[in-house]
């Protein structure tokens, strides 16, 4: 089909709009100047400062720990939800799984804040993790359900007809077949958790820092290349996870 130059130009402009800002963040993280204004010279100073910043290290450790637990639990629960949504006709489950994704994040943040405070549940790493699990379940469930929808159902049936219990049929036939989607879902959940700002902001309380919260408080005060450095590392981590997830379950990332 003939493509016009105008379409090309507009699309290239679109890609530039998406990537130039991120490239600028990365480039200035190596810039030997306090101002993110012009290129002065190459340095690793901002990274060195980052690794000497105890608060930042603590925030990174918190973020990784929360993401590890949240992705693990939400992958198990999300896989169950995806399986249940595929196999059984339920009205309530899809609503509970999909609404958290469809409404603005702040709503889940403030309602969980109310919930934890009324229960006298101390805000901190645990409350953040519980909140992250709740919003990650939906993403995992969607990926798993779409994999199940594309799967040949007769394989599981054959297993059942041959005398497998439902648990055996799931463990020996269904699970290996949907494994790539499950792993992709886990990687997505990890990424969503480590990147989440809004829900964390409301459920973390005063004393707990995560990387996004740390970045937020830094950029509220001033723009410093240290933020560029931590941003670059965080982007690198997400890039690896997401490219990996997209290899395991092509199309999975579009479900959001």
């Amino acid at each position: 089909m003939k493509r016009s130059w105008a379409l090309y130009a507009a699309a290239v402009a679109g890609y530039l709009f998406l990537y130039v800002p991120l490239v600028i963040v990365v480039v200035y993280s190596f810039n030997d100047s306090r101002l993110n204004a012009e290129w002065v010279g190459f340095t690793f100073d901002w990274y060195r400062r980052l690794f000497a910043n105890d608060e930042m290290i603590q925030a990174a450790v918190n973020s990784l720990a929360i993401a590890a637990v949240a992705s693990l639990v939400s992958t198990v629960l999300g896989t169950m939800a995806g399986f249940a949504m595929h196999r059984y006709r339920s009205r309530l489950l899809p609503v509970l799984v999909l609404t958290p994704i469809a409404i603005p994040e702040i709503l889940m943040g403030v309602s969980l804040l109310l919930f934890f405070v009324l229960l006298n549940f101390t805000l901190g790493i645990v409350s953040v993790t519980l909140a992250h699990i709740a919003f990650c379940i939906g993403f995992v469930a969607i990926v798993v359900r779409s994999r199940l929808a594309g799967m040949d159902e007769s394989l599981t049936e054959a297993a059942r007809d041959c005398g497998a219990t439902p648990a055996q049929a799931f463990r020996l036939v269904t699970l290996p077949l949907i494994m790539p989607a499950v792993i992709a879902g886990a990687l997505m959940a990890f990424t969503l958790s480590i990147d989440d700002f809004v829900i964390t902001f409301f459920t973390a309380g005063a004393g707990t820092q995560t990387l996004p919260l740390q970045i937020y408080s830094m950029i509220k005060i001033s723009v410093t290349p240290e933020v560029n450095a931590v941003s670059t590392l965080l982007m690198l981590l997400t890039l690896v996870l997401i490219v990996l997830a997209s290899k395991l379950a092509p199309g999975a990332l579009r479900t959001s």
Partner: protein
Amino acid sequence: MRWKPRGGSMPGTSSPAEGAGVSASGARHPSWQARDRGTGRWLVSGPPLAYLLVFFAIPALIMVVASFTPPGEYGGLAPLFEDGKANLTLEAYERLAGDPIYWEVFAKSVVYAGITTLCCLVLAYPLAMLVARSPRKYRDLLMLLVILPFWSNFLIRVYAWMIILGPQSALSRAVNAVVEPLGFEPVSLLFSSFAVLVGLVYVHLPFMVLPLYANLEKHDPALLDAAQDLGANAWQRFWRVTFPLSLPGVWAGAALVFIPALGIFAIPDILGGTEDTLIGNLIKQQFLETRDWPFGSVLSIVLTAIALALAGLAAWVSRPRRTA
């Protein structure tokens, strides 16, 4: 759409009996079909259902109840029961209804989200169209390139615009190099409504590209050939064939951009000036600074109602139609 069997499969026959509760394939697997519907179902759907009831549905219900309580003496909530009777009031709702300032904030948020949606549509359309018309083997890669920025941290993407629009940036200096000789005051790009809109568009763009691409990819190129054979030029082919067919994708994308854009607070917080207060900022303020939780809950409930109504509307407008 692939026919999706639920219990068992009988290739080639869709089973209308399914809806009536009698699976057409039930007879094929009499031994385990019925049992699966019982305990197995609750073993699998029970845990995620329970989790989401506790950590999503109950907090939402608490918020509804909180919206009807008076504020506590030291912020937060007043006790629900006092002197043996329920302590309920419509105070917070009356406050919202009675003060036009809040309605202005809602209106402003709707306008910002609307402009964001339109800008995203204009930017996303050529992107989605180019990818949809690329050779099949490149499409996945090109789409991955659109989605990747979405998966990088939200704050980093907003921060990038702090750098680009900041007073020392090349862009700001270039703009002022043009503006100042003309006798105008130097312009500040950052901390303005413009910066907020740029941030909103940038963050939400992938949400528009995805559904548009999913729609455009399915178009039959023969339609455009036919239009061309009948004498339509490129402009007419777009407005009379491609665009009308893509409307379900446009509506889906509009919902995916508009709804989250409506509740955002961090972008006005970081990129906006003092007048750029949106609903999200108001809600955050009520919960964390003023600590008037009942009023914060009322604002959140109104926002939820708007979001759900719009999501329903978009689903209704873009529903599959037989005559399309």
